[in-house]
């Protein structure tokens, strides 16, 4: 993590090299266009929010970007390279790492082991090493994992089983694992869901620190306070399509956006 972070610590905002660019990104599920001709652009060093009512297609977008599902149409370019046909592990290799909306951890492993698995791509491994080395993990990998735990505030939880961690820490552990994979672009799917005010504040501060260390962030979140306070730019999805795009101030006063959210609210109220 450190190398990439240091090498890219140039002032942000200045460099606006395009990191991620989708073109007409579309995904159908049967007759439903869950993501419909979305053009998404994320520049290096940004924190971009992807918001929208339930079912708008945000997670589907993430699944497309991370290679978990294939687009029905459209392309995804990451650092200029077309990655729309790659499989998940190949996407990660290029530096695009995602987290999951539903807490997804290796529940029966410790915090440290979870993060060690995050280092997967950056570890030296071979059958010979597995057979003849006396150590399970090289000390430098353990040290790096502890560093990541420290950075995310989980140092004291290193030896706890993931399933025994409180919900908030579980969510953060998910982020720590993604960080261990050394992302250039980090996709966070509802990182502060189910957290109290205090916890969500800390996580959003963490997100900013991550960006300040050179990682670009694209995040999905329903907690508007968190989104407005953290993101520099926001993209609003509704029924799979881009509804609006702009600064937090622009988006939150956009009539179409308000209507979409109110409409969703009314639909909820009606059951």
């Amino acid at each position, binding site marked *: 993590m450190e190398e990439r972070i240091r090498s890219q610590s140039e002032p942000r905002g200045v460099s606006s090299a395009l990191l991620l660019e989708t073109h007409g990104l579309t995904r159908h599920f049967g007759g439903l266009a869950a993501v419909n001709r979305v053009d998404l652009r994320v520049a290096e060093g940004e924190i971009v929010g992807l918001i929208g009512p339930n079912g708008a297609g945000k997670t589907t977008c993430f699944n497309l970007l*991370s290679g*978990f599902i294939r687009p029905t149409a459209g392309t995804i370019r990451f650092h200029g390279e077309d990655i729309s046909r790659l*499989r*998940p*592990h190949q996407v*990660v*290799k290029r530096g695009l*790492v*995602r*987290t*999951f909306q539903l807490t*997804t*951890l*290796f*529940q*029966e*492993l410790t915090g440290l*082991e979870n993060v*060690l*698995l*995050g280092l*997967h*791509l950056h*570890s030296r*491994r071979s*059958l010979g*090493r*597995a*057979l*003849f*080395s006396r150590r*399970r*993990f090289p000390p430098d990998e353990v040290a790096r994992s502890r560093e990541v735990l420290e950075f995310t505030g989980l140092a004291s939880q290193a030896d706890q089983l993931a399933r025994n961690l409180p919900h908030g820490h579980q969510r953060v552990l998910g982020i720590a*694992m*993604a960080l*261990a*994979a050394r992302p250039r672009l980090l996709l966070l799917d509802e990182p502060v869901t189910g957290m109290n005010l205090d916890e969500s504040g800390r996580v959003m501060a963490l997100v900013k620190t991550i960006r300040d260390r050179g990682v670009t962030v694209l995040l999905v979140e329903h907690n508007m306070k968190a989104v407005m306070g953290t993101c520099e730019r926001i993209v609003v999805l509704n029924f799979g399509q881009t509804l609006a795009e702009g600064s937090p101030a622009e988006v939150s006063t956009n009539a179409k956006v308000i209507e979409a959210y109110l409409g969703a609210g009314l639909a909820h109220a009606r059951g």
Partner: protein
Amino acid sequence: MRRLRVGVLIVLVLLMLLVPQLGGDYYVHVFALVFTNVILAASLRPSLTCGQLNIGHSAFMSVGAYASALLAKNLAVSFEVSMLCGALLAAVVGLVIGYPSLRLRGVYFAMVTVAFVEVIRLIAQLWVPLTRGMSGLSGIPKPNLLGVTLVTKASQYYLALFLMLLTLLILWKLESSRLGLIWKSIGMADNLAQSLGVNIANHKLLAFLLGCFFAGVAGAFYAHFIRFLFPPEFGFLMATNILVYNYVGGRGHFAGPIVGAAFLSLLSEPFRGSAYETIFFSIAMLLTILFLPGGLITLPGKLAELRGWKSASAHSPSPAA
């Protein structure tokens, strides 16, 4: 605790070394077969850990057994070579079946492996010129190891013991390495593993092929030990037994399949080959699911818990609401 475990292990190995001295040929025979079953059970574990339900392990044992037997019988190849060829062929066959079915999950993968057991059995049954089909393949030479024929049952027993210990050592080293952690992670949450850059297809394949290889080793030993191969022996029943060893022994620890295979094959020895064998294994599986879902290896912990609970309730007799 670690010292204690190492001590127990050493005593166990010493005892196993003494079986030919203490017991007669009967025990030598029984234990050599137990060792084969241990190899089979332990070699299925990596695949199971990855979350693949392989109900076809006996097919790979069959491939190893026939290949090694035919090489030794027809071409007078020595045991170490024929065994290695048998194991490698089992792995190659595993590659042919495993590669296309890797994307299948759970029940679908299980169905492919079940079907495969039948395919291999039918090939062994129908390829009469080579395998003698349902007459069975007889006249398989005793294991000829490095130019020395192992004539006595006792020497063959030591060969089985050696092969088992070597297999377990290799599998243990792999399981306790990063590779083992990756297998576990795939079994726990394969989408998360993928999202961290793990090529789950390759790792599942490796785990599967490793199992095929060692099943081939077990088969090769079996062929030169029993010296008679009969296609239906390696059928669905044996395949499920290997799976049952893992579940009854326990999935949570490396020792699980070892304990399961040893325990069940010793207990089922009186019924071996009879109709009661199936009933015995079914009951063992049922009892485990009902009373010891973590398998036999969780028994000591359970007992300690029970004792602690009893002594605690003895100290504080007031019933809590």
